[in-house]
């Protein structure tokens, strides 16, 4: 990356100002007189003893142990932006009760068990889990809410223009030159200062209303650099509304680690930021991003989970403006930690302290009190939504390249996959009427084999009068405007381009309507969409994106909405796909940019990574971070986007939620069969393995939609009390059953795998060799094998007949892998539906709960909905029986054939042929 293209905190005025906020001396107090409450909420004013500025504080109790805190200006000059689109509808309310009120504290309860205390002076909010203080807001006194103000000197503007015309020497010595001008102007004499600084020339012009009284900055601060204008490289941000940033500290007593706030190419457990830049959230098109640093990438989810041994809490900072998060571990004995101890009564254990600040908007904080990690992700999912079950094809292998030369090229690649018997589900390409003269026919050739196509649709519109879309946007005033109100023009792939304003509902409707099959030429219901470059990427813009003073629908500045632009593009595309199928088929959109809530719309990938081992290694922490932050359908380009991969890089990708092979234009062709024989075989077997596990993936994604638990999980999500797992980010779980430890170094011959769980058995999936947790064990690996284990006590559904495409496996029979725990028990689940339609939302699906206990394996169908299928069970593998049964019989008394292998203790039931739409059981006579 060319770091010079992106701002550091030092180069970013509001970051500097917020970071400079003084610790431990908060001027903000609650005005008890102003207290109001309802059955769900309380409202009270907060005042700064320094400036007398007033803020409105609102606490709202939400369903599922969530507390919502809002802080906004009272009577603002301009309404601040509220990022409502991140939420999945209006949150459901719960009850809030004031339990006790004194001149110093207000104790309250929320929801069923929530407990919180508002401290009056200085203002602070403490949230408890039982008796344990788990979150404290403004404990360090970093609340800094830059109220809006009228720029004191319109005068100043007049003067500076005079100064520029009069003082020709002004450019080299602005202070001196202006001083001369100021003294020369008759009305400025009283204000001129000895050092000649022009900023001190402030008229007595009054601001309107309350804001005037709340003036807390000194006159010098009023014109400190970066308040009313900021320059980065050659880009000037005009900042017509002046400083509007908001920030506050959030401490997590008892929490050793914090996670989340993607997207950063960094470790999963977030690092201390005191000695460098804070983690930055500002969606940008970063070319060849660097690893292990807090620079912003393509997407932003301002959500964080704090993990302590006994539990977990989450915070969601719902703000779409540029945001930073500082992370600092408290050290015992410091001012702040002693402050904390006063209230918590807890020990002196170091804990995580965070400081959040955004350039504009309000403080809109959702506090999720857990207490388990799964509770926290569910609570966050309740607020911002979960990923709807994708079509089955979307979980298969996606084949992509920038770019396939022409129709014949695509045809040959497709043929190559068939020739080498390698499954794939989706082919990506870009329309080009010359190179793809007959897209429908091409699509037909691919989709006839059950495959899908994805075309790229970016939000930058070529400014070309012959382009109907551009013309339509011009005529209907659909484009984002520059600061002067003219249509903004940036530079992107097509050259001069403008950007539809996706915050305008009419634009979104129009965009969605263009996906109709009769409007989007050459498409069919088998053609889906990739929204790239939607940060938005602007090649000639500041930090490769849109200037912050551009204007959006409703008069909001781009600065207010920036991080949400990409999500709004995808929302519109998704709706277009839903509309074109008359809400029959599930949509699929892949996006590079994202925000909190993007999970409701589709998949994301981690952008333009590099084909090397370091990028392979970072994929796991990056995808874990996304997964716990509500975005489970994510993947890193397999093989790596830039440069040419080693052969081994493909294997780990097969166990990512989103599995796509992709390559940059300038890389060597890398269709699997272009590698040597061994590598070709390896890639083929990796992809086929993925296909055999599709029933598990599909079941996990359905589970995610219902519970918000991500399919790809950090170990601590299943083993929340095992401190050892807290910093592990080189292995992960699929659901609660499969443990994956990707090999991330070239030529590795062994890896150290951590097996979690007391007395827990882990079976290697290839040979059922067993390991016992908890603890590390050295596992030999080779180029042909990556260490994957199934936990004893689980039942995993598979389909072992990998076909050309997942849709062709729809009727194939299942295999269940039953790995027993030490008590001889196991549990699992299978979810089945038609794999593509939205009928499942009306109940047309099957959930089969499987359990084995006391030598009986039985299935139970738990939903009442009806889904007809002929799918059956062809094989059941039971691992961990120390001796063979004497016979096996199903619930109808029919004998079931089986084989038992004494060495591996594997029992295979041959052709039980149970239907998956009926309940059944099978008994092992021992």
């Amino acid at each position, binding site marked *: 990356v060319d770091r010079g293209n992106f701002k550091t905190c030092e180069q970013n005025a509001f970051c500097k100002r917020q970071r400079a906020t003084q610790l431990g001396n908060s001027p903000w107090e609650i005005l008890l007189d102003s207290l109001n409450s309802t059955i769900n909420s309380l409202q009270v004013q907060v005042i700064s003893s320094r400036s007398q500025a007033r803020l409105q504080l609102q606490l709202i109790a939400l369903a599922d142990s969530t507390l919502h805190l809002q802080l906004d200006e009272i009577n603002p000059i301009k309404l601040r932006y509220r990022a409502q689109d991140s939420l999945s509808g209006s949150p459901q309310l719960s009850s809030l009760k004031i339990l006790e009120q004194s001149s110093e504290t207000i104790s309250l309860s929320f929801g069923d068990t929530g407990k919180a205390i508002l401290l009056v002076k200085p203002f602070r909010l403490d949230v408890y889990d039982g008796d344990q203080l788990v979150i404290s807001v403004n404990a360090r006194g970093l609340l800094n809410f830059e109220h809006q103000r009228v720029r004191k000197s319109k005068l100043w503007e007049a003067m500076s223009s005079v100064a520029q015309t009069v003082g020709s020497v002004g450019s080299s010595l602005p202070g001196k030159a202006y001083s001369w001008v100021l003294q020369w102007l008759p009305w400025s004499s009283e204000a001129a200062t000895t050092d000649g600084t022009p900023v001190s020339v402030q008229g007595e012009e009054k601001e309107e209303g309350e804001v005037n009284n709340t003036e807390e900055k000194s006159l010098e601060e009023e014109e400190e650099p970066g308040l009313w204008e900021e320059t980065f490289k050659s880009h000037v941000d005009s900042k017509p509304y002046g400083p509007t940033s908001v920030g506050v500290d959030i401490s997590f007593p008892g929490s050793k680690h914090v996670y989340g706030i993607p997207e950063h190419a960094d470790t999963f457990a977030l690092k201390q930021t005191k000695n460098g830049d804070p983690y930055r959230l500002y969606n940008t098109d970063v070319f060849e991003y660097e690893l292990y640093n807090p620079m912003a990438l393509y997407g932003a989810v301002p959500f964080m989970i704090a993990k302590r041994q006994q539990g977990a809490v989450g915070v969601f900072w719902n703000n779409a403006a540029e945001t930073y998060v500082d992370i600092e571990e408290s050290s015992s004995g410091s001012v702040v930690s002693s402050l904390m101890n006063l209230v918590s009564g807890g020990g002196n254990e170091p804990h995580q302290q965070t400081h959040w600040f955004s350039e504009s908007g309000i403080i809109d904080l959702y506090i999720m009190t857990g207490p388990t990690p799964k509770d926290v992700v569910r609570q966050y999912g309740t607020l911002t939504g979960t990923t709807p079950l994708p079509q089955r094809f979307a979980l298969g292998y996606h084949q992509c390249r920038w770019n396939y030369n022409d129709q014949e090229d695509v045809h040959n690649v497709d043929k190559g996959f068939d020739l080498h018997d390698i499954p794939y589900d989706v082919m990506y390409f870009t329309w080009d009427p010359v190179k793809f003269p007959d897209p429908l026919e091409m699509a037909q050739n691919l989709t*006839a084999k059950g495959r899908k196509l994805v075309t790229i649709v970016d939000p930058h519109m070529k400014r070309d009068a012959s382009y109907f879309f551009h013309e339509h946007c011009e005529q209907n005033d659909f484009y984002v405007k520059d600061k002067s109100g003219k249509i903004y023009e940036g530079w992107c792939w097509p050259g001069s381009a403008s950007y539809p304003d996706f915050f305008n509902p009419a634009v979104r409707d129009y965009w969605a309507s263009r996906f109709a099959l009769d409007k989007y030429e050459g498409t069919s219901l088998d053609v889906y969409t990739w929204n790239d470059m939607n940060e938005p990427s602007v090649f000639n813009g500041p930090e490769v994106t849109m200037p912050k003073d551009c204007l959006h629908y409703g008069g909001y500045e781009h600065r207010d909405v920036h991080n949400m632009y990409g999500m709004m593009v995808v929302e519109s595309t998704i709706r277009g796909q839903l509309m074109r199928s008359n809400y029959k088929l599930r949509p699929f959109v892949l996006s590079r940019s994202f925000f909190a809530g993007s999970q409701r719309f589709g998949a994301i990938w981690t952008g333009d990574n590099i084909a090397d081992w370091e990028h392979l290694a970072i994929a796991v922490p990056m995808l874990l971070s996304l997964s716990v932050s509500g975005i489970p359908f994510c993947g890193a380009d397999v093989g790596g986007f830039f440069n040419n991969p080693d052969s081994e890089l493909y294997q780990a990708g097969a166990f990512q939620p989103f599995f796509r092979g992709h390559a940059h234009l300038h890389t060597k062709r890398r269709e699997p069969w272009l590698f040597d024989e061994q590598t070709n075989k390896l890639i083929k077997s990796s992809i*086929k393995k993925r296909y055999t596990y599709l029933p598990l993936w599909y079941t996990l994604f359905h589970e995610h939609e219902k519970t918000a638990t991500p399919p790809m999980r950090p170990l601590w999500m299943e083993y929340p009390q095992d401190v050892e797992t807290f910093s592990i980010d080189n292995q992960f779980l699929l659901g609660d059953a499969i443990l994956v430890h990707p090999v991330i170094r070239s030529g590795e011959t062994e890896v150290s795998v951590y097996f979690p769980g007391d007395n827990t058995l882990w079976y290697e999936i290839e040979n059922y060799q067993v390991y016992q947790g908890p603890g590390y064990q050295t596992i030999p690996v080779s180029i042909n094998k990556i260490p994957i284990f199934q936990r004893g006590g689980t039942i995993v559904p598979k389909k072992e007949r990998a076909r050309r495409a997942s849709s062709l496996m729809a009727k*194939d029979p299942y295999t269940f892998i039953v790995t027993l725990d030490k008590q001889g028990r196991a549990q699992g689940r299978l979810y089945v539906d038609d794999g593509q339609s939205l009928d499942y939302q009306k109940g047309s699906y099957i959930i089969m709960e499987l359990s084995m206990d006391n030598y009986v394996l039985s299935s139970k169908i738990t939903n009442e909905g009806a889904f007809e299928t002929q799918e059956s069970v*062809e094989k059941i593998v039971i691992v961990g029986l120390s001796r063979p049964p004497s016979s096996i019989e199903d619930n109808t008394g029919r004998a079931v054939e089986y084989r038992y292998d004494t060495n591996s203790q594997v029992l295979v039931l041959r052709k039980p042929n149970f239907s998956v739409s009926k309940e059944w059981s099978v008994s092992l006579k021992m």
Partner: protein
Amino acid sequence: TQLTRPRGVSLARASLYSPDADFTCLDGSATFPFRYVNDDYCDCQDGSDEPGTSACPNGSFYCRNLGHEAMIVPSSRVNDGICDCCDAADEYQSGANCVNTCKELGSAAQEEAQRKYELESQGYAIKLEYINKGRQAKLSQQERNMALKAEQVEAEALRAEKEREKHEAEEPEKQALDKYRQIEQEAMKEKEEIERSKQETEASKAFDWLDSNQDGKLQVEELQTHVAFDQNQDGTVTVEEAKFFLHNEEEMDKSDFIATGWPLIKPFIMKAQGLENPSKSDQQAGEIPLSDDHHQEESMPETEGEEEEEEEHEEEGETVKPSPVTPSSVEYDAETQELIEAANKARNAYDEADRRLRDLEREIRQLEESNSKDYGPNEEYQPMDGQCYEYSDREYTYKLCPFDSGSQRPKHGGSETRLGSWDSWDGPAANKYSAMKYDKGVQCWNGPQRSLKVHLSCGMENQLLSVSEPNRCEYEMKFTTPAACSEPKKPDEGDSEIHDEL
């Protein structure tokens, strides 16, 4: 012969599937009742128990495709809803609506084979012409080569003769000129002698003039009286300054003075008299060298002059040829003049013979180079050498000049870029002449050197069909030529059976 063999088994393998006995996996890994064969459950590691179902991940399915060609597909294609076999045998249970298209495909294939046969026939006829042309070209090249070789022998002999004649003519010329050279040298010696005695006289006179006390020796004091020796021009001649001219001795006798003293002193005397050239005196005025050596090198005009003359002589010595140039100052007698002219004539004759031989050698080399190019097993590609073929797409016009190079140039102006130069035949081992490699093209910006692979196929004419760039800077061309046509074979009729290996 319609044997009752299990579904998906080829005729060739039918005997391995006997319903009357237990079945043993073809890899020998297990044996079980025959009813396990094709029971839609995979029992063999090699997949051999399920030739007719999709149960085994690594199995294969044979379809006979009566009326067309038999085919083997992976088991994963069986009953997956897609018609792979033209006889629809692979979709016996999926409900896919497959129709038997083998007849149509078979006749289409036959038509195609017929078309191909005709193409090959016509193309091959042209190829035969090419072969003829190529062989003739080769032959005439060989003939020409032989002729040239013969000429070469002649030319070598001629050159040897002319060389001899040249030597013969140069010998008397040299002797005649040597005589003149002796006369010149003697005159030179005489002149030098006169010059030397003139110098000695001058030195002697100067000595006498400087030896003011007439004791036959020059002393420091005597020199100190002459302002000419005030080297630093501070108005006094110091002892050091004076001793410098006496080689740091107190005194110097006359013979030393004549030999070494005077050359040192003379320039100072001359300078004092204003006779030296101005630039030199400027230099000396600025800084007077203190070391003897330095002084001698830098400021002794005569010494310097001598050196220059020597250098000039050396240079002449290098460039001057043994004789022909007649020094303009010398008048030769008629006899000598005649000898010189005869020698010049002999030299010219030799040069001509030499040039002719070299030309011949060059031509032979070129012929041999072309001869060493591999124009195919029967020289059929030879007629393409020296030709160029073009193809244009939206942006570029591509040019292929077989056995030379490939290039592209933008259609809307811009210079030509070389994609590669002829390197070698590059087809697979079994069919080496099906592709050509051109490499070492122009380097890509920030990338590798361009290269080009040309795939040849049978066609009625030489034609560049398409150009692509499947990898960055690696180009591929498709080219048809009669030269690539093989001897046509009458297409077979009727169905065929794939005879798979066991």
